[in-house]
């Protein structure tokens, strides 16, 4: 098969074929990542409605298809067919660029996310830095959407979102500092490899060697900051229905709104996968003897996603100043203290990360 393609390519494109083939092959890989991702986004919305339904003693969607399984497709079609409205006096160009700016970083981060030892699109040295850098750009979509719609509610929502995302990024970054201290690498694959070694891993209990146990406070801080970064309940003041109607996307309709929705859910999946990679051992099997595979990563990510939905069903929305206090006065000092603890720990004879 491969030879046939190579022969065919050489015949038609000559010397330019190898570089052209690289581009095509990369595009195929990108599609292989993005297509399942978007499908899981669609079914994450279904899972969310079902889980929330059962937690509220309701049934959730169950009309479209068996057990309501076609519901996300129907929702998607509905959004596609709706008219996109642009408010008068809105800044038209920015109004339509904003959803793209929200969605593009959420997809771009997936370029460096490893799914198993060899299954990664771009295994770059500083992939953790790349994740932080591109992740920090997602705030622009929200901010511009609020400003460009020329509405007070939308503007208030975007201001809240911007302040919240910038604050929690610091806690998130500090939590990762300790991770890269113990891993000695910025590469996500290396970080997972470091978690496969250790006293417990040698005795068959690999899940106790993962970063979550020695870095427990940072694990909690990272995940909660992730929830805040994605503007999910209980930190969803950016779209607090009770105060500012729907926040930054109040004026958006149809597919323009759907793209914000897609961006939010893609980022949720991203935070879940990153938490699993950094703190829960990625594709490493929890016990010795079981084979390592990408399915473990997917399973762990699903567990973290369930936490997202569980939080939404359980906690009332935070007040805005409480969110800021939690971020600045609780999480940042906590992470800084734990960085010192880890630093001192690593210099003692009881260092477990050698």
């Amino acid at each position: 098969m491969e030879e046939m393609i190579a022969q065919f390519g050489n015949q038609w494109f000559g010397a330019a074929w190898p570089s052209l083939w690289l581009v095509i092959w990369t595009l195929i890989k990108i599609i292989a990542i993005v297509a399942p991702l978007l499908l899981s986004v669609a079914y994450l919305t279904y899972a969310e409605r079902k889980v929330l339904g059962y937690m509220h003693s309701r049934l959730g969607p169950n009309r479209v298809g068996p057990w309501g399984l076609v519901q996300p497709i129907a929702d998607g079609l509905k959004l596609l067919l709706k008219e996109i409205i642009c408010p008068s006096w809105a800044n038209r160009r920015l109004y339509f660029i904003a959803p793209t700016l929200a969605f593009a970083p959420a997809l771009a981060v997936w370029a460096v996310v490893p799914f198993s030892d060899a299954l990664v699109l771009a295994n770059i040295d500083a992939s953790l830095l790349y994740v932080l850098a591109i992740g920090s750009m997602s705030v622009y979509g929200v901010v511009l959407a609020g400003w460009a719609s020329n509405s007070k509610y939308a503007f208030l929502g975007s201001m809240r979102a911007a302040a919240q995302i910038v604050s929690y990024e610091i806690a998130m970054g500090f939590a990762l500092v300790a991770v890269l201290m113990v891993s000695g690498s910025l590469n996500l694959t290396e970080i997972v490899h470091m978690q496969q070694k250790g006293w417990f891993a040698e005795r068959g209990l690999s899940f106790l060697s993962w970063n979550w146990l020695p870095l427990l406070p940072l694990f909690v801080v990272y995940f909660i900051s992730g929830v805040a970064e994605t503007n999910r309940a209980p930190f969803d003041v950016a779209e607090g229905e009770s105060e500012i109607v729907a926040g930054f996307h109040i004026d958006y309709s149809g597919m323009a709104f759907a793209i914000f929705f897609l961006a939010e859910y893609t980022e949720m999946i991203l935070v879940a996968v990153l938490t699993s990679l950094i703190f829960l051992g990625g594709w490493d099997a929890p016990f010795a003897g079981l084979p390592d595979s990408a399915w473990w990563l997917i399973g762990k990510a699903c567990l973290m996603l369930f936490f997202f939905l569980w939080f939404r069903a359980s906690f009332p929305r935070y007040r805005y100043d409480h969110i800021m206090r939690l971020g600045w006065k609780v999480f940042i000092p906590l992470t800084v203290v734990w960085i010192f603890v880890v630093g001192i720990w690593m210099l003692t004879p009881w260092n477990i990360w050698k």
Partner: protein
Amino acid sequence: MDFKTLLFFFLATILIVAALRVITARNPVHAVLFLILAFFSAAGIWLLLEAEFLAMVLVMVYIGAVMVLFLFVVMMLDLDFDQLRQGFWRYLPLGALVGFVIVLEMGAVLAHRIFQESIVVPMPEESNTRLLGMLLSTDFVYPFELAAVLLLVAIVAAVALTHRGGKGSSGALVIDPADQIRVEAKDRLRIVKMPITREDATNEQSGEKKP
């Protein structure tokens, strides 16, 4: 022309156009967005030079944090564009002079490099993030810590400037709930006895009442 050169010219074109638009855009929000685009293209060029750490940090610090705050402030400003443009012709000669001097200086530095043999530093095999970390914590540890202390002083100064004292972070805005409970009606409401006055005909028509 190989792909890398093509990419360089692509990024460089975007960078120059965006940088020009930063100073020519009428809307300040657009100007900030063009500045972000310029940073992003510059980060791309740094990536082409294999300085991936610098590129990532440029995106993370400038685009992810500094420019968000810039945008934050610019969006809330209510600018009068005509007033901003008033002094343009008066200040143009001075501005042009300063610009010319800067171009001259930069040109001198670049020309100096052109006449020399070009210095091509071979890229080390190891990741340059690790090498930078090594250098920062060995050879340059004192300048690095000095810079950190400087930033800390700046943070403390900023907090001291905006700190309003008192209880809580926002000072006067914080109200003790105990004081609220202890309040009595006579502290809040004063009933004033007034003699009844008769309203004249003209005021009755407009519906206004005179005390």
